[in-house]
């Protein structure tokens, strides 16, 4: 009986899934809304690498491990250092503010 249980545990299938995403923009800020039903904050990993936001999450549905993954390219105008994310009711909201554009004044010299 115990052997049977172990065998079952080893044969759990992994099911890759690309979650649905809505993208919104306001005043230079971009927000992603990612559908991750059944996922809690501790089961989500979020990282940014060379202009791509990578979202990974795991969820067990019966005998299947669902592995959510989505890669979202972001523009140069957004600041990945100030990325913010929260998950509520199975939807992950990722907010990326615009980069602070430092204004440099160039002196004009008289000839």
């Amino acid at each position: 009986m115990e052997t049977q249980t172990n065998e079952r545990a080893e044969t759990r299938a992994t099911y890759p899934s690309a979650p649905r995403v809505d993208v919104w923009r306001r005043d230079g800020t971009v927000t992603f809304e990612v559908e991750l039903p059944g996922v809690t904050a501790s089961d989500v990993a979020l990282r940014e690498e060379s202009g791509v936001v990578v979202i990974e999450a795991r969820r067990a549905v019966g005998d299947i491990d669902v592995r959510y993954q989505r890669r979202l390219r972001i523009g140069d105008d957004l600041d990945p250092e100030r990325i913010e994310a929260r998950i509520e009711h199975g939807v992950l909201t990722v907010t990326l503010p615009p980069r602070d554009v430092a204004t440099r004044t160039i002196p004009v010299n008289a000839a």
Partner: protein
Amino acid sequence: MLVPWTHVRTPAATDPFGLRRDWDALLDFAFDGWPVAGGGRAGLGGFRDEGNAWVLSTDVPGIAPADLDVTVRDGVLTVAADLRPQRTGWTAVHRERRNPSFRRSWSLPKDAQPDGVSAHLANGVLTLTVPRRPETAPRTVPVITH
């Protein structure tokens, strides 16, 4: 009518469960878009038979408990969510998510216990449980002879 086919996300060839999922997706499509996770379909439509109860688990991402309305009336279970996601002042750049609003009704089978129906919503997953009355054993009627 041509309808964009968005249910199938993984080809059957690369996923051992793909075919079943495609089939489920087809059924979901037939049953007004109600997605069903891991269920047999005999008995109460979309619910799986767990012996002492019918159970349905379905993904409803974005729906909060306050958005959900579950009623049992005259032997009919109705689940509805009326939600218009608003992002006032924001511009939609790209949209894939479907409108999360829905309404679905089921006629409860004879052995269901309407008073015991429960709905559990956690992390965008809704689980409905309809308890069943324990099977009544047939009563043997003794035949009296004189």
